[in-house]
Structures are given as C-alpha cells and as structure tokens.
C-alpha cells in the first residue's frame, strides 16, 4: 500500500481553555483532492496549521509524507505549498518578486527560480502584471498569485485554505479550472471551503467537521445519498399534521422557525406533495449543502 500523504490519528489541539481539534483521524491519499468542510471555528485552519508544522500538535500522531513533523519539519515544508486564507502576499514586492523571493526561501538557485517564475506567471496569466505592485491587483489576480506562489517549489501537496472566498464568479471558475489542471497533473490537494459547489466539483473525498470533531467523511456523492437522500422538500410554515407524519414515517427533517426541510426519497416526497403541499412547497434534488446544514445545524453561529 502506498504511504498516505497525510496520516492523522487522534489528532488533538488544545489551547488554554479550549479544544480546537478534538481527536481527529483521517488520511489523504496521493493524487487525491481532500476537502475540509465546516462552519467558521470548526477547527479546519487549526488542522492545516498543524500539517505544515506551524502549530505544535498537542497529542495524537500526524505524519506527512510518512515523515515525523517534529524532526523533519523542514523536509516536509520543502514539499508543501500553502495558500493561506488571507492573501499573505508580500506588499513590499512586485508580482514577479513575490515569486522570486519566495523561491529563495526554498533555496532554489536563481536560474531555476527564474524559469519556475516564468512558468507560473504564464500558467496563471499573470505575465502582463509582472511588475505590478501586489496592492494594485484585483481580488482574483491576488488569489491567483497566492496559488502560484504556493506552487513555486513544485510541491507534492498543496494546501488551499478557502482559496475562492470573496472572489467573483468569473475568478472562482477560472481558479477551479486551474486547480483541476493541477489535480490532473497528480498533485495532492487539501482544500478547505465554505462553498459546497467547490467541494463537490474538486474533492474526491471530504470530511465535515464541527467543534473540532469529524461528523462524516466520504465522497461528496456518498454523503449526499447517505445523509440527504434523493430529494429535498421545503415546506413553508410549520404544520402539525406534517410533523406527525414525518415522525411516524421516520423521515429525516429539520424544523426551523418558519419551515420544515425534509430529506426524502422519491416515494415519500410524492406523498408529501399530494397530502401536505397545499401552498408554498419547494422540491429539489439533494446536494452537499443539505448534508452540511443537516449535520451542523441551521442556526447562526456567533
């Protein structure tokens, strides 16, 4: 069996009075795109920071490329590219210098650094902006440069922490295309995102995490089938007889202030349609977002 790129067993991270990651076990296979989904504060970024050896692990085991993080952190970091949540681009440097200087941190020699920089400027269509200041870049361009910079060392693993948050749809789709190209080239991707569409498109497997614990793990399709079923019916208003029906038939559902969200197979949704849908009912196919909201709850977080 191939060594997993990341192998975490009972991973735990505790701050003074707060357990951010609470006994998480998972592995990421070579060439896979693995996703972390979870509400803000669920522990996604904390896990990522442990993976690249920024945050020390409180307990449990975490091996990256089969190497030990405490002893071999430099070797591990030399093979990882990290695209941090906030564009941590160097505002004192130009677009091109951002790549060249970063190559220096990996001790690339200048010829190689220059060649790689050109390659990445081309790949991300940034060559025309090579002398621009980072501050002058639009959100989409800045993010592309951040991803480009994460690839400077030809990493085996690329970590993307919310790579498309705050981007317009055009930029988002463009970046997805690039990420899919990377995946095809065999690079392993680790992705956190709030966009279910992004996770469904890019990830082979993903976990949904909340309060530092993994709720479910699997491929996006499996998770939808297991936790949301075929279709979703949203009924406006909370009708008592419908509630009784759902409890009796043991149909998975969420009740919010104003509506009932029902995760139904086709025959149940047919019954609901004929018996309870006198007015405002929405029928649609189930998606990852339904799984996410069902598992992490629909109420707002502070």
């Amino acid at each position: 069996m191939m060594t997993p790129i990341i192998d975490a067993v009972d991973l735990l991270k505790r701050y003074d009075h707060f357990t951010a990651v609470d006994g998480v076990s998972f592995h990421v296979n070579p060439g896979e795109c693995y996703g972390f989904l979870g509400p803000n504060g669920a522990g996604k970024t904390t896990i990522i920071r442990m993976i690249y050896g920024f945050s020390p692990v409180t307990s449990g085991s975490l091996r990256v490329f089969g190497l030990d993080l405490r002893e071999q952190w430099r070797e591990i970091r030399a093979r990882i590219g990290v695209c941090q949540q906030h564009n941590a681009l160097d505002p004192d440097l130009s677009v091109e210098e951002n790549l060249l200087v970063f190559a220096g941190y990996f001790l690339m020699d200048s010829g190689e650094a220059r060649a790689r920089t050109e390659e990445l400027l081309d790949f991300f269509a940034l060559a025309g902006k090579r002398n621009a200041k980072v501050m002058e870049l639009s959100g989409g361009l800045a993010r592309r440069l951040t991803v480009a910079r994460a690839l400077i060392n030809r990493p085996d693993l690329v970590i993307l922490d919310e790579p498309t948050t705050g981007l317009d749809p055009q930029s988002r789709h463009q970046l997805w295309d690039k990420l899919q190209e990377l995946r095809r080239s065999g690079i392993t991707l680790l992705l956190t995102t709030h966009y279910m569409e992004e996770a469904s498109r890019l990830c082979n497997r993903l976990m949904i995490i909340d309060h530092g614990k993994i709720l479910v793990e699997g491929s996006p399709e499996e998770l939808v089938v297991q936790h949301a079923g075929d279709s979703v019916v949203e009924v406006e208003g909370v009708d008592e007889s419908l509630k009784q029906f759902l409890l009796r038939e043991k149909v998975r559902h969420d009740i919010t202030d104003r509506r009932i969200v029902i995760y139904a197979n086709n025959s149940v949704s047919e019954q609901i349609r004929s018996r309870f849908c006198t007015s405002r009912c929405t029928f649609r196919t189930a998606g990852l977002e339904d799984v996410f909201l069902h598992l992490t709850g629909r109420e707002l977080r502070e």
Partner: protein
Amino acid sequence: MIAASSFSWRFLRVWQRNVIVYRRIWKVNFLVPLFEPAFYILAFGLGFRHMIGDVSYAGATLSYTEFIAPALVATSVMWNAFFETTYSSFVRMYYQKTFDAMLATPLSLEEIIVAEIAWSATKAAAAALLMLVVLMLLGYVAFPLGFLSVIWAFLGGLAFGAIGMYFTGIVPTIDLFNLPIFLFITPMFLFSGTFFPVSGLPGWAQDLSLAFPLYHLVELTRLVSLGRNEGMVLFSIAYLLLFSLLFIFLSLHYMRKKLIK
C-alpha cells in the same frame, strides 16, 4: 526552548528580501544619511559655536562640532536599527503577515527573527557609512581609521535591533512602542555622552550611562573618529556583544510565544 536545528544560513534569504525592498527606494534611503549630518553640522557649527566653548575629551580639546559629529553617527545607528525592528518588523509581522507566509516555507521562526535583527544592523551600518563619508569630507572624522565605525555601527545596530525586536515580542499593539521610546530610547539619546561628556554628570548618573549601549557606541565611534583607538574599547565591544546576545535570545523567546500557537 530554542533548538540548534532551528538555525541555518537560510536566514540570509530573509535578510536578502529586506535588501531588495530597501534597494527599491534606495534614493530615499540614501538621502537621509547624506543630508542629516550636513544639517546638524551646519546648525551646531554655525549656531552653537559661539555659545559653547571647547570640550575636553580623552585628553584632547575639541570644538563642540568636533565633539558631537561622531555622536550623530552613533545616534542615527540607534534610530535606524531600533525603528527597523520595532515599527517596520511589527508591520511586516502583524499587518502584512509576511512572517506567516515565510513560516509555510522551510524557514524557522528563529531564522526570520535573526534575519530581521541582522538586517536592522545592516541598514544602520549602511547609513553610518554614508554619514562617515560626509563627515570625513567635512573634516570631522579621521580618514581612514574612521571607517572602522562601520563595524561599530553594525555591532551597535545588532544591539538596538535586538532590543527593538524584544519590544516587538512583548507589545500587544503598535502604539505601545511610544513607551520604550519615551522611557528608554530618549534618555539614552540624551545621556550617553552624545551632546555633552558624561564626566559632567554626578557619579551615579555616570555609572548608569555605562549601561546604555549608545554610550559604548558613541565612545567607540568618537575614538576612531579622532584617529585613536584606546581607552575602554574592548570593554565597549564586549558590552555591545553581550547586550546583543541577551536581547536576541529574549526576542526569540517572546516572538515564539507570540507567534507560535
């Protein structure tokens, strides 16, 4: 704890990054050290000359302008290095997230911090070199022995850069740098034999000024500016070295505490 494996020559790449940024606006960066001494010499030479008599220092009699010229170099080393590792490093660390990005590469936090301090000393030494050239042309610094002050400037720069980085490690917000500047830098600026010889101070204040790294840097710079190398040179060098080492160690400790979570 600080592990030996956290140090490598890789820190030079971070130093290099700062050189690249410095070079980008080198004209502005060069302007200040070129003109600052000229302004001061003009002001003190023309303005104070008739109000203040000669100063006796290390057995020699100096005009007041001759007396303060080397101190100008030393104080500029202090300001340059201290500002670099306080305000500038804080901006890079906190606002620009430059250190965060570096910490996702094979750089260690120790290398980043040491590189920042070494850079502050380099910047201070570069400013000192420019000032020395101007002061030599004006005849206030001996040629060529006065160039030795570039080395003193680097050493002094390490000391001020290190203590600056220590403050960066402990202040919660950038506004609080006012405190060490008011309570430490300003008294040091005034009472380190810069504008008047410490021999005029009461005994206890003389002893106190010995603890100021600026006192030692002024001494070292002034002696070689006069073309002499005597007195407590070795003691001053040793003091600056130990001061630097102590505060490099403390800044590594507090920066680790601050950044690694």
